């Protein structure tokens, strides 16, 4: 894989994709060649800040199913054309309307996973999620559950079979694949009042905010910490490889794949 030129890899990827756009989207008619043009333009105009793969750098990570400033395709084109006031994102005046659409189309592919057939029965998986899996104790779907781990309401838009299976069987390894800051990094803290383990919510040079396994938020000044450890390659999520085998695992994965944003 290492010897395949990046551009070729992306081109192969592009040929496997069709954009998941609504009938009203200005990107609905983009063809594979248009996306390839968007990739080329992205490398010229955008990659300096957003990274050659769009995975972020000085600019934000664009390889996401949802972009903060571009909830829909019109907004994404507007961001490219007009920039984002108050941030480092400039207006890209030198792109014409067609080119801006091609770039927008390519950016949408960055956060997209390939369509895959479900390995099991999502309805049965939904039951496992609620019962033997015990997942709502830590995850929220459509407002139900406890928000300790990631919300899963639209997890099917951003995660494919391999990642979901890995998350269930080896969550620490799956978490280490995340680009940027690990959203659910385990931290261990000891103060004069006791010790705790939890998930990092935010951090700067002087303070850290932590969510414990009950979902309760804690704030600490770093100067008050007697011990402070960031535990990389570790997850507070249990490994479900032993508890959920065979069909049960496939059904749960299928349920998670079915959780997608309505278009």
């Amino acid at each position: 894989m290492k010897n395949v030129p990046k551009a070729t890899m992306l081109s192969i990827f592009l040929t496997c994709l069709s954009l998941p756009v609504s009938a009203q989207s200005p990107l609905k008619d983009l063809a594979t060649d248009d996306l390839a043009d968007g990739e080329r333009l992205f490398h010229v105009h955008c990659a300096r800040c957003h990274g050659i793969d769009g995975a972020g750098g000085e600019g934000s990570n664009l390889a996401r199913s949802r972009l903060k400033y571009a909830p829909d395709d019109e907004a994404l084109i507007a961001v490219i054309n007009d920039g984002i006031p108050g941030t480092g994102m400039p207006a890209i005046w030198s792109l014409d309307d067609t080119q801006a659409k091609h770039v927008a189309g390519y950016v949408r592919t960055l956060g997209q996973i390939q369509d895959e057939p479900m390995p099991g029965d999502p309805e049965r998986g939904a039951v496992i999620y609620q019962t033997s899996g015990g997942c709502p104790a830590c995850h929220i779907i459509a407002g139900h559950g406890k928000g300790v781990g990631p919300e899963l309401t639209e997890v099917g838009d951003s995660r494919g079979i391999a990642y979901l299976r890995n998350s269930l069987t080896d969550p620490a390894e799956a978490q280490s694949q995340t680009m940027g800051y690990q959203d659910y990094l385990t931290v261990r803290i000891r103060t004069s009042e006791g010790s705790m383990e939890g998930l990092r919510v935010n951090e700067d040079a002087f303070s850290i905010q932590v969510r414990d396994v009950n979902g309760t938020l804690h704030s600490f000044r770093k100067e008050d910490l007697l011990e402070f450890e960031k535990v990389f390659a570790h997850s507070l999520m249990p490994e479900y490889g032993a508890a959920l085998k065979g069909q049960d695992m496939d059904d749960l994965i299928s349920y998670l794949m079915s959780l997608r944003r309505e278009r």
Partner: protein
Amino acid sequence: MRTLMLLVTLLVAIPATADVSFERLVNASNDKDSWLTYSGTYRSERFSPLADINRDNVNELKVIWAYQMQPSGDTGAGLVETTPLVADGIMYITEPPSTVTALDARTGKRLWSWSPDIPEETLNIGFPKVNRGVALLGDAVYVGTLDAHLVSLDAATGALRWDVEVADNAVGYSLTLAPLALEGEVIVGVSGAEAGVRGFVDAYDSATGERIWRFNTIPAPGEPGSETWQGEAWQTGGGSTWLTGSYDPELDLLYWTVGNPAPDWNGDVRPGDNLYSCSLLALNPRSGELEWYFQFTPHDTHDWDANQIPVLLDAEFDGRDRKIVALANRNAFFYLLDRETGEFLHGNAYSKQTWAAGLDEAGRPIALPGKDPTYEGNLVWPSLQGATNWFSPSYNPQTEQFFVSTRLMGSVYYKADIEYEAGQPFLGGGEQAMSGDDAAGAIRALDALTGKQQWEFMLHSPPWAGVMATAGGLVFSGSNEGNVFALDGESGKPLWDFQTGGAVRTNPMSFAVDGKQRVVLTGGGTMYVFGLE
């Protein structure tokens, strides 16, 4: 007696109009209550001689006033990188993209504001729509604009005096730096290497705006240095000059830094050392003639502009009194040069780097093979934004310490084929920078004469804020996470911090009004002025 009292009352109540003579700029270090030029003094120490705020009381700092920047026009601008200047109770700032505003330094109330008409289609290829500040000379304020003009304003009212086009923005030239005012002239440099411009340093008559000289940073065929280029590559060779330089009035030498060659990451199309890219120039400020140069990164392929602040210091070095220029470079090496001759005195890595085995006796990097960008990607430290960048270091002459905001971050560098097209990005590749917990930042204190690290204060992410040391034994800086803070200059221990609510991308500065010291730091779009009371 009554008249005298009235006069005293008026003097206290009304800020005077700025009158910043060249002599006053030369002696700026004695003008403790003011901050008269971008880096504080011509020596660019970014050191405040004020000591009212010190290690014993800094934990009592509080916000005295704040000012919210107001981006003008429909240009999508917003990042604030300005260093305020203060003279005689008036603060002069720039607001993005190119607005100049005068504030009452006592209260933060606006006195006047001037905004140029920046066309919507103005190019800013390779950098955000920012402005780093103004220059003061006499009773005028000078500002460079995003569309590559230099403008003179009346310091009392903001009225326009003159406006000259420095270069054509349509091919990528822009002005984001604070100009440097010398005797009767204003020096500026340009941004635009990522668009393949040919860089230069310009001097303009401060009274008329007439151009006095231009030094092209990329030599044309036949000029000295042209042997380091082949073919026509020099015409689009980059070498922009986008950061304010320093000046030695005794030697009458101007020190100005030069950025990367273009295209950034594909060096195949520009074989050779590519002078004077990634260099420090010593120029005659009257004629623009080159007195000497030192190239930090010959044939750069990582976008390691040398646009960092050259700091002038006098010290005994190897048993001799030397006039030194110190520079912590984006390429991760710290350099000491003799500023009379350009002789290399010392160099050492001050941050992680994986591209050179070290520096040879002349200060030229011993480049390791296989560190250039490739089509497949090649991990090299530091990242394209460098071990440090435009934000200012600081030198404390009392302790001979050099403080630098350091970016601890590598990048996978990619090369791509590229052809020049006017007004378009001319990059020839890209990077995928390390991010999240794989990257970090630090404020580092170096022994200024050995480059040896004395302490570091770790930051959560690679910073974009400069540092300022003070006679109070403090080092001020900021973080991307919105913290502004003061460290003990001796130990690096944090003594005070404040959450501004927005990423800090400015250099700290300090001044005094009514005899009370103030420290200025900007988080997001809000400038905070801190004091003890």
